[in-house]
């Protein structure tokens, strides 16, 4: 089994604040990992380190055996990692189609990008991705007309087009109601599991964690508090993780 990630003693500091402290972990390719932790625990920073959007202050992050320090954002990185966030992730003024096709930007040169923006070329690609997320009828709408749940489906469709090896999801369902949240998580599972893609997501929900993930990492004050198989996770573990006072 190849490793998707290997982190050794990784820290990340912003000024004098240590946001991530000496985190070491590895993730197998194809694994589905949930990251839990209270707000401010460092989940977003950890995910941005994994997505190679920021570089560690100390230690190294290896992504499919490549040190993320040598990976610059752009075309090469987009083959490895795709990112989906809570919201505000899409371009409101563009059509649904163009937002979905933006998943191809890493493969396209500048002229191809302009051509796609101005013509209806590649509509079959966006149509099949939108069909998979159940939004076939919204192709030509402006994105701002869609509801929050629909917008998150568009973000998933963009990931389908991008087709990376790893998907990093930072609270992808935080602003959605339970039914919408379940739907989005199912979609993320559908686009990762069959093709053996790695899925790493920050969440707050015990139910979604146990339903969709096989491994869970608890993060507290920038440190790994626990790292276990989901079947071993108890609500007591969660209460400890979210408690204000240090109980462990």
């Amino acid at each position, binding site marked *: 089994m190849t490793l998707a990630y290997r982190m050794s003693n990784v820290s990340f500091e912003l000024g004098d604040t240590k946001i991530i402290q000496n985190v070491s972990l590895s993730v197998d390719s194809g694994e589905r990992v949930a990251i839990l932790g209270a707000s401010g625990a460092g989940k977003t920073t950890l995910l941005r380190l994994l*997505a190679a959007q920021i570089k560690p202050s100390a230690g190294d992050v290896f992504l499919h055996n490549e040190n993320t320090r040598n990976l610059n954002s752009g075309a090469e990185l987009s083959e490895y990692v795709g990112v989906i966030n809570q919201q505000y992730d899409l371009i409101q003024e563009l059509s649904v189609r163009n937002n979905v096709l933006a998943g191809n930007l890493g493969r396209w040169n500048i002229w191809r990008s302009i051509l796609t923006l101005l013509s209806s070329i590649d509509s079959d690609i966006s149509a099949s991705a939108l069909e998979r997320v159940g939004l076939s009828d919204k192709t030509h709408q402006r994105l701002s007309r869609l509801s929050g749940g629909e917008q998150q489906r568009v973000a998933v469709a963009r990931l389908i087009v991008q087709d990376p090896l790893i998907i990093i999801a930072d609270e992808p369902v935080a602003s959605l109601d339970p039914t919408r949240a379940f739907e989005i998580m199912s979609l993320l599972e559908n686009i990762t599991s069959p093709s053996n893609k790695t899925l790493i997501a920050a969440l707050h929900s015990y139910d979604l964690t146990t339903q969709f993930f096989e491994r869970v990492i608890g993060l507290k004050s920038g440190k790994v508090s626990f790292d276990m198989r989901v079947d071993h996770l108890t609500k007591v573990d969660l209460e400890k993780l979210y408690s204000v006072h240090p109980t462990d």
Partner: protein
Amino acid sequence: MNVVRKVITGRPGVVIILTTAFLTSVYIADWNRAIPRSSGLSGIYEILKGFSQPDFSQEFLIVAVQATWTTITFGTSAIFLALVIAIPVSFLASGTLFRSFVVRITSVSVVRMFLALVRSIHELIWAWILAILFGFSPMSGVLALAIPYGAILARVFADFLNDVPQPPLRALQSSGASNIQTLLYGRFPSAYKDMLSYGFYRFECCLRSAAVLSFIGLQGIGYQIEVSMQDLQFGQVWVLIYFLIALIVSVDWWGSKLRRSLAE
């Protein structure tokens, strides 16, 4: 040193500089000369009389319509040329095209300094400079407006492009977008409404300036106002002012209608 710098660049600095400038101007101004001339009152009477007797004769209306049309074409070509200059230059002035920090800072500071230089010269002075170069021709007039307006638009457009919310742009970059692709798919679509809105406001200003600048080889509204003033035909002056107001109000109306249709 730090305290000094904070006072100069911070809010107290601005307040001190503006207050000092105002007080100095009050002291320097020669208030004795501000007494109205004795002929001034009768001049105002003549102007007000013209207001009550506007010249709506058919032949003068034709003159006014022609002058307005000249001003429209003059202002429109100037703003169009200004936009053609401003959009690509704003890309450079925003520094968003370059990944390397050194190249970005150089591009931003050089281009912005150049824009500040061009902007600091008023369109009237550009008109004089260009009239020396090309004579009193329509081209001088259009360029005299397009150059400073292009610089103002480029500067403001660059700020709009820089101020776009970052998370969607980061998401585009994680999809593999290069800087120029991020500009085309993210920054520009997110900023274009603000750009359009400001562009329309500048179009209004441009038409006003075009009316004034029409002494440069163009028979626009400003030129006709000057002619009627010299003939002491205040009834005609008022008609021309009505046309100018109608022009500005319609551009304003058109602009807000367009903005609304885009917002839907």
